[in-house]
């Protein structure tokens, strides 16, 4: 349950964190009550109860932070603290985040808003927050040592500035940031335009998420903070498929997806069934002349992209990072390729010694998704997720855009799987096959390949299922 309703009522009994002994109650009394979220579900959009009006966003598997108006200033309260984030059902990570979750709540303001953010540090070490992409006084930029003192554990600091520029932003620590970002400290920030903006079109659905990566040893809970590149979990908002919510829209909706990249590598985000344009970056809205249609856009490290399209094709459309390892969960990158290797007889030997052994990989890795075998505690399978046609064989940065004619406007509920009109699903061909043309020999037309004297051609054997010997014809 989302507990933001407690915020303005000041009802008090808000999930645990308020009572932290390390923060002075007297100091806290003057602050806006922090709002804590204890669920990783996608919260419905938060319509602004006061201040300038705007069209709210929906944070994928997240929520928007409520505020308090104080003499015309929007006051937010972020609490940096250890959290338990459910990354997928049955798999929980011990992270650091804000207000009960990682990533922290999305902050939504309007261009020109005076914003005051109280940041209470309940981490075991000092922190700061950097407001990535904002125009603000230098002393509010949140770089420890350079523009401010660190926020010690148990203390609350105040950041105050005017949100000058409409656009898509994020926030993250700039103190021990390698560790703190590896632990999941980050959040989204949207500054809505004040009134009509020539480069910012109103949309019907506005989804936001951050991309982050973690290195969590299967069977453990805490990310390895020293990892530089070898992450094993790639997430949208610290959720991995099948834990990520789908993006549910009405047919014909104008849809905006804003994504920020706080991982250590780029992510080519790819949408099926539609073309989109990149209408904005963290530098602001892109000029119309700079926009061109795409189905994949690369989001580099530390960047934000804002994709827009009209969802005019009904169905369940995949939306994912096109790096195929990033649509897998934890896996062993040192596991040898077993494709085409006949295990017969050896299997008997191995199962005599290791009774729970099962052959996998002989025909590829989809075995993995099909067989539900016991895994180490607190480990999401490498690929999972059941769709209407079976296993999706996916993990990590993968979700589904669900476009439905009957989805009510403003309704974000998950419709079930798409019901395909008859004759619109790929079907099995049962007729007789014509002879298929073969590629001509190498070297056709272009310069002939160089062949060193004495070197024999390496015979390349292509294995195809269904042949008399399915294992490539090597003798045993």
């Amino acid at each position: 349950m989302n507990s933001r309703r407690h915020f303005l009522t000041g009802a008090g009994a808000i999930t645990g964190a308020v009572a932290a002994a390390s923060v002075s109650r007297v100091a806290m009394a003057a602050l806006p009550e922090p709002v804590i979220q204890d669920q990783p579900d996608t919260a419905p959009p938060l319509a602004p109860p006061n201040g300038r009006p705007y069209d709210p966003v929906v944070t994928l598997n997240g929520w928007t932070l409520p505020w308090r108006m104080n003499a015309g200033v929007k006051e937010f309260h972020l609490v940096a603290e250890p959290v338990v984030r459910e990354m997928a059902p049955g798999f929980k990570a011990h992270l650091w985040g804000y207000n009960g979750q990682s990533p922290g709540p999305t902050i939504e303001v309007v261009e020109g808003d005076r914003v005051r953010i109280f940041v209470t540090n309940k981490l075991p070490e000092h922190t700061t927050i950097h407001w990535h992409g904002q125009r603000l006084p230098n002393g509010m930029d949140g770089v420890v040592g350079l523009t401010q003192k660190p926020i010690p554990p148990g203390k609350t600091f105040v950041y105050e500035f005017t949100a000058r520029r409409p656009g898509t932003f994020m926030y993250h620590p700039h103190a021990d940031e390698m560790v703190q970002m590896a632990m999941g400290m980050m959040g989204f920030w949207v500054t809505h335009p004040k009134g009509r903006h020539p480069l910012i079109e109103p949309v019907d659905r506005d989804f936001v998420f951050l991309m982050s990566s973690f290195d969590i040893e299967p069977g453990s809970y805490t990310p390895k903070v020293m990892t530089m590149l070898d992450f094993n979990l790639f997430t949208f908002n610290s959720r991995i498929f099948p834990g990520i919510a789908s993006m549910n829209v009405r047919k014909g909706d104008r849809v905006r997806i804003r994504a920020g990249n706080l991982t250590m590598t780029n992510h080519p985000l790819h949408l099926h069934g539609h073309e989109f344009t990149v209408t904005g970056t963290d530098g602001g809205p892109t000029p119309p002349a700079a926009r061109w249609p795409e189905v994949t856009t690369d989001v580099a490290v530390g960047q934000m992209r804002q994709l827009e399209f009209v969802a005019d094709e009904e169905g369940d459309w995949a939306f994912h990072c096109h790096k195929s390892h990033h649509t897998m969960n934890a896996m062993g990158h040192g596991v040898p390729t077993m494709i085409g290797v006949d295990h017969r007889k050896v299997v008997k030997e191995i199962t005599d010694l290791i009774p729970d052994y099962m052959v996998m990989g002989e025909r590829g890795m989809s075995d993995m998704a099909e067989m539900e075998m016991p895994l180490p505690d607190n480990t999401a399978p490498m690929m999972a997720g059941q769709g209407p046609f079976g296993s999706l064989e996916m993990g990590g940065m993968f979700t589904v855009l669900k476009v439905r004619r009957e989805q009510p406007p403003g309704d974000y509920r998950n419709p079930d799987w798409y019901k395909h009109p008859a004759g619109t699903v790929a079907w099995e061909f049962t007729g007789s096959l014509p002879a298929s043309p073969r590629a001509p020999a190498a070297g056709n037309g272009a310069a002939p390949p160089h062949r060193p004297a004495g070197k024999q051609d390496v015979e390349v054997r292509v294995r195809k299922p269904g042949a008399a010997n399915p294992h490539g014809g090597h003798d045993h």
Partner: protein
Amino acid sequence: MPIPSLRITALAAAALLAGCATVDIDQAVGQTNETAAGFTQGRLELSRTAQQQERRERLAQQLLAEPLGQAEAVQLALANSPALQALVAQGWSDLATAAQGGRIANPVFSFERVRSGSELEIGRLLSFGLLDLLTLPQRASLARNQSAQAQLQLTRDVVDQVSQMRQAWVRAVAAQQQLDYAGQVNRSAQASAELARRMQAAGNFSKLQRARQQAFHADATAQLATAQHAATAAREELVRRLGLSDAQAAQLRLPDRLPELPAQPRTPAEVSAAAVDQRLDVRMARLQLDAAGRSQGLDLLTALVDTEVGIRRDTQFDNADGSRRTARGWEADIRLPLFDWGGARRAAMDAQSLAAAHRHDDTVRAASSQLREGYSAYRTAWDRARHYRDEIVPLRKTISEENVLRYNGMLIGVFELLADHREQVGAVVAAIDAQQAFWLADAALSASLIGQPLAAAPATPLRSAATGEAAAH
């Protein structure tokens, strides 16, 4: 063919001692059985008759029909081992020899026939060692002492044999277990090698990757051969200790595994030095000390004061006149201590007594120390074996199970899984070593308690266990 020759020895010993009614070997063996009840379970006997022989053979057959446990192995050795029979026969001989010292020498009858011209003189002398007679009580007591020593020696020899047989049994069973596990490692390595061969054939492995897996297998094969011989050697050692014939050796079956550790180790109180007085080695030293003291005066006396008395009857015949005269009388011999008043001899005896006294003290002191060391070896071996059983092996098992889960999740590959299995087997092998060390120490402590110490079993690990790698590859 040891059996017939030993049988002859036994029979010869029996014949030699047949006239000696006072040495009862069955009683002596009974006493040994009683003293070493923990070892013989009262079942040792010297077999002299066809029925006894037959009974022994029948018992051996019965015991060999089932896998031979440790207690059964002791019974079998007692019933079957010619070496033990020889030991008992030898003990009989020693007992008899010792008893001999307590008897009076037989009287000497000398007969003279001297012809001088027409005279013929016939002299008859019946003489006794007077000193023999006088010192009889002392000598009888000495002989008893020596009999007791021979008795103790017999017991010690039996205990020693049985203890060594027990250790041989432990080694033989453990070696067989190790062989089983070496076989497992080998099979795991073989599976890796075969899979690697197929991987290379399918183009998924380089020559180097395949060679690595092949090398594991080659190593494992060498280790299996070593384990095979070790098992054979340990078994044959046991066969010799049990004194099995070829046919019996072929029948011999051993249990699959060593006995479980006892739930509780023996307590220090059970093994306290209070029992030191009853130890065989201490009793032996005390007997030797007594004997030294008791024989001191006696030996000096017999060396210096050799006396004999005799009754003489001489008859003279004179063929010339056909007359005859008879003379009767007695004679006494006495050695005159003119040149040797026994000083040197007395000094030697004093020295020997002193030596015996110090040997006794030394034995008593060493006995306590040996017990403490033996107990430490025993206790350490128990603790280690339990640590392996309750900590290391379960941990290894957990690692194995977790690795299977990681294999399931495609987090590790089958080669890692097989390599891990080899490591786990290494830990089990080390655990068996620890269990073997315990049972060896147990046998050693039992022997030490009764007073026939064996070399203590090593308390140090035979191989590195915690890592397992060394053992695994």
